């Protein structure tokens, strides 16, 4: 299961699928597109899917609810969320602190883009309630919201961000697609897209998990140092039917955010926890054992080729 | 002899309006009783009560000595308005009561055809009700009610939409049937001649509201009768004059009251 197959942060999944690595591992993978990370997670808990490509945040949130969810491959090392301000307001809003009293579009209330925004606001000395947030979803609806001046700033993900930039509609304030940007904003790596599943499943199907990890890591390695054109060449045509040039730019902007190794570093998972516990009541109250939310045991056993 | 159908102090009120009050009327088994009275006096209301479609506000109806609860199981009711099924052809409408009794469609249709021919509609078997004239629809309804052979026949102005000749044919047919198996018949009509020609008894209702029977005339004319011929007998004319006197006064009262 995946929440929004076409989302750029989940691109490695498509890459692996197209390269046929799953097949080579002897896996018959059916990719169910659930459009939203939260629904993918629910499908996992409900048993409709076995493994989810989703956000690492969710494993922490689940532990707060007493669910044992484990991430076993890191796919994105930066969250790839961007906060931008509408270009015609760029003069007034130069820093995040200037957002006070403005309307900010997020993908959905309670989503990562929402937490990201809140985190930035607090860091800038504001309260989350100092702006009014509007759920604008992803994709075309988000674009429409900016274009129609329904929102003053936007916290969103690719490909909407590049498109907005291309159209000259926004100016970026905080960018976590790149190493540089993420370091500035969050202080370092921040596990985003991961493969996760329940601990029970992991314990029952270590072989399958290993094969998945093998395929994923192979794909991540393959992607390293490739130019956008090379990657685009293996993607299904539909992905850039909208506008190929645009898609290449999106890829170029995002490539840095993919993890080269699939391994979780020891410090990185702390950052999502900090962000989450600032705003999610239940995470704040719960005592989270980070060690239980991820494992490198499979990635470490991936043969080096 | 115990009566087949008996109204006991039946009162029917619609809200404040008391349509009929304290009606007591007993029909012997096999009796042919006509009900006449000014328009709006409550004849249809009484038939509805007898059919079990309307529970009286006070009083009760006895069927073969037992109080009638719910639908009258032995009654066939030819309504004043068209009540045949608009989505079935004439043939299927008439076959329906047999089908309800478990007769297979093929046989039911065969028997229905015979009945439709009896009422002069042999050429209109496949017509839907909206393709029939008013008089034709009435006759389909007649065949529909008669085919099931009910023991009690309630008829509300069955022949008023027919021309005189067709009417007499139907009346004679009805009498023939009645003579065969001696159904009990409660017959509503505005045509006093028809009432006398057909019945053993003619009951005259008073004008509404609070209508009740004000006259009960036995008709001692010999049977079998031919409805056309019997009208010319002196006995018939005497009865007619007698009942008419009573009825006329009543109708005038109705109009004075309105």
């Amino acid at each position, binding site marked *: 299961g995946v929440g929004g197959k076409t989302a750029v942060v989940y691109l490695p999944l498509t890459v692996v699928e197209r390269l046929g690595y799953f097949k080579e591992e002897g896996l018959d993978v059916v990719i169910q597109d659930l459009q939203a990370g939260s629904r993918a997670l629910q499908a996992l808990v409900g048993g409709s899917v076995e493994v989810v490509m989703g956000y690492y945040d969710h494993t922490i949130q689940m532990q707060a609810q007493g669910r044992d969810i484990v991430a076993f491959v890191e796919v994105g090392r930066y969250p790839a969320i961007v906060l931008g301000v509408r270009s015609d307001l760029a003069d007034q809003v130069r820093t995040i602190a200037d957002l006070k009293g403005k309307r900010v579009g997020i993908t959905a209330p309670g989503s990562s883009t929402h937490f990201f925004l809140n985190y930035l606001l607090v860091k800038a000395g504001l309260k989350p309630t100092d702006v*009014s947030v509007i*759920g*604008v979803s992803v994709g075309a609806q988000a674009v*429409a*919201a900016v274009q129609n001046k329904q929102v003053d700033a936007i916290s969103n993900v690719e490909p909407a961000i590049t498109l907005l930039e291309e159209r000259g509609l926004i100016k970026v304030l905080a960018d976590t697609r790149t190493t540089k940007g993420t370091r500035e904003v969050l202080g370092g790596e921040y596990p985003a897209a991961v493969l996760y599943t329940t601990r029970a499943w992991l314990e029952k199907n270590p072989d399958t998990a290993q094969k998945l990890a093998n395929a994923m890591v192979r794909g991540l390695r393959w992607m390293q140092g490739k130019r956008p054109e090379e990657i685009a060449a293996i993607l299904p045509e539909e992905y850039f039917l909208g506008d190929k040039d645009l898609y290449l730019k999106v890829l170029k902007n995002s490539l840095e955010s993919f993890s080269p190794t699939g391994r979780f570093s020891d410090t990185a998972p702390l950052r999502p926890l900090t962000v989450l516990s600032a705003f999610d009541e239940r995470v704040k109250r719960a005592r989270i054992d980070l060690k239980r939310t991820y494992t490198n045991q499979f990635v470490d056993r991936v043969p080096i080729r | 002899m115990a009566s087949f159908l008996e109204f006991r102090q039946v009162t029917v009120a619609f809200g404040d309006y008391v349509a009929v009050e304290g009606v007591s009327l007993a029909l012997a088994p096999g009796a042919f009783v006509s009900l006449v009275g000014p328009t709006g006096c409550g004849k249809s209301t009484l038939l509805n009560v007898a059919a079990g479609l309307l529970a009286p506000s006070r009083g009760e109806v006895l069927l073969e000595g037992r109080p009638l609860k719910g639908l009258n199981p032995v009654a066939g009711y030819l309504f004043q308005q068209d009540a045949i099924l608009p989505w079935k052809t004439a043939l299927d409408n008439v076959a329906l009561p047999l089908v309800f009794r478990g007769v297979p469609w093929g046989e039911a249709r065969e028997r229905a055809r015979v009945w439709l021919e009896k009422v002069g509609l042999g050429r209109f078997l496949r017509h839907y009700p909206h393709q029939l004239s008013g008089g034709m629809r009435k006759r389909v309804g007649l065949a529909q009610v008669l085919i099931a052979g009910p023991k009690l026949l309630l008829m509300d102005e069955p022949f008023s939409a027919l021309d005189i000749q067709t009417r007499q044919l139907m009346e004679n047919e009805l009498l023939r049937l009645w003579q065969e198996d001696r159904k009990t018949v409660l017959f509503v009509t505005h045509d006093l001649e028809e009432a006398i020609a057909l019945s053993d008894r003619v009951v005259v209702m008073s004008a509404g509201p609070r209508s009740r029977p004000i006259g009960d005339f036995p008709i001692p004319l010999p049977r079998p009768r031919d409805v056309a011929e019997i009208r010319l007998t002196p006995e018939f004319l005497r009865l007619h004059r007698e009942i008419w006197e009573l009825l006329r006064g009543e109708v005038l009262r109705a109009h004075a009251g309105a």
Partner: protein
Amino acid sequence: MRGLRVRLWQAGLLLGFLLLWEWASRTGRIDPFFFSLPSAIAQRVWRWFATGEVYPHLYITTVEMLLAFALGTLLGVVFGLWLALAPAVAAVLDPYVKALNAIPRVVLAPIFTLWFGLGVLSKVALGVTLVFFVAFFNTYQGVKEVSPLVLQNARLLGAKPSHLLRHVYLPAAASWIFSSLRTSIGFAVIGAVVGEYLGSAAGLGYLIAQAEGVFDTTGVFAGMVVLMAFVLALDALVGTVERRLLVWRSKEREGGSA
């Protein structure tokens, strides 16, 4: 008496259902992650109202929903009347109306946002596209079902088109239209909530989406409970209006004490 019995039954059913739910959730027979617990939901609803935090959301959803309901119904009825009375136009537009009805509205959310912004209007638009078709098809059919006899009579009595509309088509189609209202209420709510769910800054749908985003099933169900209560209130209103407007119906035969 009867009303009380009904209420008791209803309460009993509800209580039984809730108890079963609570029990199943507590004993782990169903997963509280998906289904929450009735007690937790009740608590949440209570808190929402006690702290008053739900009111602004409720207000927004109410406005959206009422507007969608009123506008959708109005448009549907007007359009239904128009097409029913102008068969030539209807013949031409027929496939388009049907094709439009097949569009999954959710997909159109970006276009609605573009045209109507992210405020109340886009939700109303979404709701209208749902309600419209329900009202439209029923009104259309309702007008087609007008008794041709009554219609012809009114026309011969000199009714102009506006009179026909007022005195014939609308009363005749009234029960159709009211039936569609019953369905529509639900769809108006869905339109508003789904619209909020897809993008907004307030409203019950926003509350639900927020709860869903942080896997707070209790919040999701609490939102739905509030919605339902609200729809029931609205439906009672429609019911009252309906009873007012349709006094002329025979319902059951009124007389007697059956």
